[in-house]
């Protein structure tokens, strides 16, 4: 992982120690760990934005060092001493004033030119693209692959090296769509169908972290999504698998029992194509307020990233979960309001057996 470096110097003696501390913690923080740093870029948009950061940092550092340097020098040099003379009563100097009005202006306009140049350079390139409608909910993201006719939740999958065009839609409050390593944010505002684009250069091993960046209510902290980048052919395979309906009847008896619970308890809010929906654009889906679960088993996150979905930690043997505590989906179904207070999933208490059956069923929805 590339590490953001700070070259700024601190004004006082302790400042050095402090920066060392900060750098050290930064180092510790970025070792061996996934961090969604805006400087660890994997696409042209984020990388141009980061490039501008380095440029600005250099300019700012020059100004910072110069001004703090003169300030600290004056404090030491002109500090009152027993025999200091009375200073000369200088009221100003117009030449100096003009110099230090013009000098920062030059620096600032250099930055401004870089800004405007990059800004217009970030316009979406013409040519083929993948179009995804992004719907911000309280508090999860829906990704509607409009031309491919399927939807996912909390999980954006894109092909490598392709322009991805996003249409940002909300019919509740304002959200902001952000993938630090791929692109800066654009707000998702009711009544303003904003657009943005990005491109991902590398296939992911760990999905990128995406976040909501505009305060959107009680669970703003848990409105994440994951971004997986697949090679182009792998993406096509993924698309065709996502377009499939779920099996009408799971073969595994535990999963079958889970499906029964789904149809009796969950389908008022959630849709599964092949079970309670004909297809992803079934008019019935308009009334469903929860995420579409047709391919839940293939996703990574639960409920806006409040928990992760990892089938290997949720093994069901003989109708029972092997280890309930390590299974995120168990925790979620056991007490959604405890895990994510204020969210829309208000359900009666499920028994451990019911949860195990649901886990088995949802896991089968690959």
């Amino acid at each position, binding site marked *: 992982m590339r590490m953001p470096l700070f070259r700024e110097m601190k004004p006082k003696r302790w400042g050095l120690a402090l920066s060392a501390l900060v750098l050290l913690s930064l180092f510790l923080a970025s070792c061996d*760990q996934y*961090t969604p740093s805006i400087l660890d870029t994997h696409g042209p948009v984020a990388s141009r934005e980061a490039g501008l950061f380095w440029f600005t940092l250099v300019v700012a550092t020059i100004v910072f060092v110069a001004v703090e340097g003169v300030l600290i020098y004056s404090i030491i040099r002109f500090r009152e001493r027993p025999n200091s003379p009375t200073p000369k009563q200088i009221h100003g100097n117009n030449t100096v*004033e003009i110099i230090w009005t013009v000098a920062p202006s030059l620096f600032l306009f250099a930055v401004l030119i870089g800004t405007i140049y990059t800004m217009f350079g970030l*316009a979406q390139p013409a040519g083929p693209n993948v179009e995804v409608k992004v719907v911000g909910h309280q508090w999860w993201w829906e990704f509607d692959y409009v031309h491919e006719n399927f939807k996912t939740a909390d999980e954006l999958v894109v092909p490598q090296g392709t322009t991805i065009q996003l249409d940002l839609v909300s019919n509740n409050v304002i959200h902001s769509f952000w993938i630090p390593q791929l692109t800066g944010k654009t707000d998702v505002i009711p009544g303003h169908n904003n657009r943005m684009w990005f491109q991902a250069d590398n296939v992911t091993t760990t999905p990128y972290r995406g976040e909501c960046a505009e305060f959107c209510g*009680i669970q703003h902290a848990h409105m994440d999504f994951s971004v997986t980048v697949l090679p182009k052919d792998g993406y096509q395979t993924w698309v065709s698998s996502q377009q499939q309906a779920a099996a009408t009847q799971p073969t595994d008896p535990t999963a079958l029992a889970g499906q029964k619970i789904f149809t009796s308890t969950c389908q008022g809010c959630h849709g599964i194509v092949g079970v309670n929906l004909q297809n992803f654009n079934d008019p019935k889906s308009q009334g469903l307020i929860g995420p579409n679960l047709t391919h839940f088993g293939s996703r990574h996150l639960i409920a806006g990233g409040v928990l992760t979905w990892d089938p290997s930690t949720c093994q069901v043997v003989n109708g029972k979960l092997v280890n309930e505590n390590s299974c995120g989906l168990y925790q979620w179904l056991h007490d959604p309001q405890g895990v994510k207070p204020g969210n829309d999933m208000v359900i009666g208490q499920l028994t451990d057996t019911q949860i195990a059956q649901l886990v088995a069923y949802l896991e089968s929805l690959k």
Partner: protein
Amino acid sequence: MATRTVVEGVTIARRKRFSETYFGEWVMTTDHKKLGIMYMATAFFFFLVGGMEALLVRTQLAVPDGKVLSPEEYNQVFTMHGTTMIFLFVMPMLVGFGNYVVPLMIGARDMAFPRLNAFGYWVVLFGGFFLSSSFLFGQAPNAGWFSYAPLTELTSACGANAVICTPGLNMDFWALGILMLGISSIAGSLNFVVTILKLRAPGMTINRMPLFVWMTLVTAFLLLFAIPSVTAASLLLLLDRHLGTHFFQAGAGGDPLLWQHLFWSFGHPEVYILILPAFGMISEILPVFSRKPLFGYTFVAWSGVAIGFLSFTVWAHHMFAVGLPPVAQAFFATSTTLIAIPTAVKIFNWVGTVWGGKLNLKVPMLFALGFVAMFLIGGLNGVALAVVPFDYQVTDSYFVVSHLHYVLFGGTVFGIFAGIFYWFPKMTGKLLNERLGQIQFWLMLIGVNLTFFPMHILGILGMPRRIYTYPDNLGWNELNLLATIGAFIIAIAILIFLWNFIITLRSGQPAGDDPWDAFTLEWDTTSPPKPYNFLVLPVVRSRRPFYDKKNPETADWKTATH
């Protein structure tokens, strides 16, 4: 004991009127100095309240998956931290300084409208209590200090698939509280404008006014033009919430962005309202403790005016991510770049003032120098935020939190403490303890950097602001812990100040009338000044009237040309 004259020469004892009791003297006063002190005491009380809220926030975020506050509590606390600090601490504190110092500096006997002045104070006090009382109902404002619609609407009105917006009284408290405080600000600003334009001592031309007076004047004009915008916004929100209008509702013909434009066309001038008076204080304190006049008076004064004008043209730089057309973004990037120029000019002139001086590093000077050093950081990372494509990345992240705290804490709060240490002897006749002040300064300097510098990095590492918790596997843990430690160091510094304040009031060293050998008129009277301020109104012949009086041989009016 009060007396009453029965016939000429014969008096009898009578009960004191309420306005003559110690308590009544303060409650009934219209004296600008008493009101100034009341403003400052009230503001300081709310500073402690807002500080406690900050500590709660930092405690919650000290470690990942913090469980100190529930999400709803956290949202109320961070919203009230911002609202309290801006509207109930910084604004009243600066008005308090202005109230106390401006009439003395311009050689006036009081503000132009003493009763209006008292009215303004009481509205702030009750407005503050009103806002804070929301905690008693468990319904404190919870949508952030800029209260973006439609999150602030009733849930039924804020979108077809909204889970929850603001069904409770939270936003009603906020909107009504802001309306009340706005009334106070308008009253106070009018008073400052008239006082400064009409009540200056003979010879004090506009061009000879102390810089603090200049900046208070600019701030007063900013308030007069900025407050109506937030007043309108708050009213429209209340109408939406209670009378079924749809100003901010997309589905019904309104527009959520209307709120943002209205709020930020107040909000950005507001930022300068919060810093310009501190600029003024620094421009008073640096020269006195450098034993030199301010370098480039004209440039410092007029750059303040330029900032004032430009501050009305930059509001949409808070909105670069909302999808404005690129040309509009380029305009606001340019105006934001322009406003950095007068700000830079001010910083250079302050450094120029210090250069070649004889620096007396007393506590007011330490805070003033700390102000320059810290505000510079806030200025530079502010310029970074004007870099639009970079702003797409860091807006609404912790980078912004860092920026605004370098400006408002490293800047304004350091300025306020410089001002407190500087004028406290005038207000009370006693000098705050120097040693404790030094300890406080160094702790604050360390605390500020430890708290807010890591936030730059957190923003760059992708941490959004206003999240009540974060997972432990994103590399944000250490930096958050550092920030929390820093916040508690600041808290210790503030406790030391409180201790200093108490022991100084009880047994502080007498200050005399002019402890700093200062230049301006407020020092040319007793400490504390009599209710009438000056026995004889001073006559002003230069920008440093009191310096002239003490140094008749080298008086400014003999040597300088203004």
